[in-house]
């Protein structure tokens, strides 16, 4: 009886060792590719941030400046929100993304896809000169995942 139990335990141990080593080996084998894909996503996130920072539509002002003017209630420019969402959809593609511009406790946000627990973030502060106003600093955050 005791011999039988010992055999079963040995076989169980060998089987478990085989399965766990297989899992670890497969994880190790795909590690370089997974890390390279993470670097790729990081670059995409950074370029998404810079593209949004430089994006202009119809007006001479870039998107963050237009958003800030809208948040501050400067009425002479209209933010083409639908077009911005369309552009954001185009850039983010099948992934998830979020852009958030904050100034003086006021926020403007566009989101594509569901919020994810694992994402890349690029953020920065922008010094802006709204037409006919004081210099202001806005916070721009872009998330991609």
């Amino acid at each position, binding site marked *: 009886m005791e011999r039988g139990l010992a055999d079963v335990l040995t076989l169980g141990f*060998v089987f478990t060792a085989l399965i766990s080593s297989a899992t670890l080996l497969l994880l190790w084998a795909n590690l370089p*590719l997974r890390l390279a894909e993470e670097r*790729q996503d990081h*670059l995409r996130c950074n370029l998404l941030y810079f593209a949004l920072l*430089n994006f202009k539509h119809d007006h001479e002002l870039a998107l963050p400046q237009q958003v800030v003017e809208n948040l501050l209630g400067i009425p002479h420019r209209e933010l083409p929100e639908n077009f911005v969402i369309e552009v954001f959809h185009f850039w983010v593609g099948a992934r998830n993304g979020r852009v958030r511009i904050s100034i003086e406790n006021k926020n403007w946000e566009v989101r594509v896809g569901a919020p994810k627990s694992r994402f890349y973030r690029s953020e920065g502060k922008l010094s802006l000169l709204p037409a006919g106003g004081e210099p202001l600093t806005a916070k721009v955050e872009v998330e991609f995942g």
Partner: protein
Amino acid sequence: MKEFFTGLFVLVSLLSFFILVAASYQTYHRSLEYAKMTDIACTLATQLCLRNRPAVIELENLPFEGIYELGGENFYYSLGILTIDGRKVDSNIPRAKCVELEVPVLVRGVPAKLKVMVWKGA
């Protein structure tokens, strides 16, 4: 008889383990190769997108195809641009087994995606 089956099981397990190690090693090398090509695509995209203004691409003097040398190996690349209004600019090189990277850019103020394709030379 029982010892025979136990021994057989251990032998088969050991054999499977060796096969697994060999397969993982092969996968690791393939993965390393793809990672290298992905990194080259990232390097090219970074070089092209961070020239004057970040993420702003100028079509003039854009090298649509070329060779990138890394560690004595030649990697070929070609570029493509797709704008939001559906216009496409790309090189017409036939490619197989290539790594593709699409990054958001602005081309003459129009939102676009820069596609970098990298593959290993013969």
